[in-house]
């Protein structure tokens, strides 16, 4: 088995530089690579383009990178939970590309799967379609969306093995599997790292071929954004 293990988050993030494009998994604060984000904040890497469904909240997740003005451009589908984000966007400090959620997921998947573009009905007749090729299929207009790639994709999984195979838990899966496929280098931070052979091959979600570096996160706060009870 090829061993993908790196000893810690510092080693995992080696080579991440100013101006790079990163993909970061997660939906809201659920399934985000929080150890890697904390390290990016610490390293002070700047001028990043971040592809992530959301932008965290003001004091957690990608919100931490926004506070330090480390992000130049965000590619997301929904950013409503973050006041600093909205302020930087409306003032023009931050460039933002808002993409329908399904198109964002499929563009990441396409990037990893070697498909340069695809047609989707989502966004036809809206701002999202501006400048994009339109083609009719079965009488219905569709717009051309292109694949997304990243210098580094940083994902979070529940369990991983030394060969880089990953298993996600519940809805913390979200964008992580597609992004894992689309990074030139994919870093996986996991809650539990086990020896190759300990995971049941039938139950693996992301095959290790997509993962170049894996480490067990030191600490997971796993903050809940909207604690709602019966």
């Amino acid at each position, binding site marked *: 088995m090829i061993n993908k293990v790196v000893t810690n988050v510092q080693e995992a993030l080696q080579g991440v530089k100013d101006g790079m494009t990163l993909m970061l998994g997660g939906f809201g604060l659920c399934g985000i690579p929080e150890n890697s984000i904390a390290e990016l904040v610490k390293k002070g890497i700047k001028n990043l383009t971040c592809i992530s469904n959301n932008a965290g909240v003001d004091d957690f997740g990608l919100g931490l990178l926004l506070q330090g003005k480390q992000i130049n451009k965000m590619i997301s589908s929904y950013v409503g939970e973050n006041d600093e984000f909205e302020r930087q966007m409306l003032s023009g400090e931050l460039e933002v590309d808002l993409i329908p959620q399904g198109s964002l997921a499929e563009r990441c998947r396409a990037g990893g799967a070697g498909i340069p573009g695809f047609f989707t009905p989502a966004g036809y007749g809206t701002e999202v379609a501006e400048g994009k090729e339109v083609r009719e299929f079965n009488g219905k207009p569709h717009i051309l969306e292109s694949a997304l790639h990243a210098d580094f994709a940083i994902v979070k999984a529940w369990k991983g093995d030394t060969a880089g195979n990953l298993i996600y838990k519940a809805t913390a899966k979200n964008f992580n599997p597609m992004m894992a496929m689309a990074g030139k280098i994919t870093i996986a931070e996991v809650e539990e790292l086990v020896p190759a052979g300990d995971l049941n091959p039938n139950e693996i979600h992301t095959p290790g071929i997509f993962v170049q570096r894996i480490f067990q996160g030191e600490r997971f706060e796993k903050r809940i954004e909207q604690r709602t009870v*019966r």
Partner: protein
Amino acid sequence: MLNKTGIAKRIAQELEDGFYVNLGIGIPTLVANYIPEGISVEFQSENGILGMGPFPFEGSEDADLINAGKQTITALDGAVYFDSATSFAMIRGQHVQLTVLGAMEVSENGDIANWKIPGKMVKGMGGAMDLVASAENIIVAMMHTNKKGESKLLKECSLPLTGTGCVKKIVTNLAVLEVMPHGGFKLLERAPGLSVKEIQAATEGSLLVEGEIPEMELS
């Protein structure tokens, strides 16, 4: 006039046995509380779950188990988790039978706007554009007028669109309406105690009234 719960109760009557349903954030979420007796439906949340259950009891919240509104939820027996691409394959591929979502504006030709107020509020479209572009059965749940008292049922939307010609049915605090293929809001039902005239006054787009309009029946 209905409150938000009333709107949810009326929409719940549209559920049919065997439906997979996607509920948006806000009033649509409440629909899950009023599933008619004797039918089985399954709720899909686009962040990656089918078979979404009620909110958890205090103490059993799981940070890894949320809905699209980022609220903690539970999973019912038979539930399944999946990634975002698979989730939107269900939506785009029309495997979901009913979509209920909120709106800031709806036009008489079925256009919908619900994601952006230029210069003021830019939260993003989330999954709304994918949902409205592909769903065959879309119900909009919203108040008939905005906070300023202006109609949200318009001849043309003034806000940036989420989708075009896609809304089929609207349930508001005042009425149930159908968007006609050639344009116009056909009045189907009135909220209890309201007159056609009052609904007309709150509707900027063309309201089509044919014969007697029944009152909504809410249990």
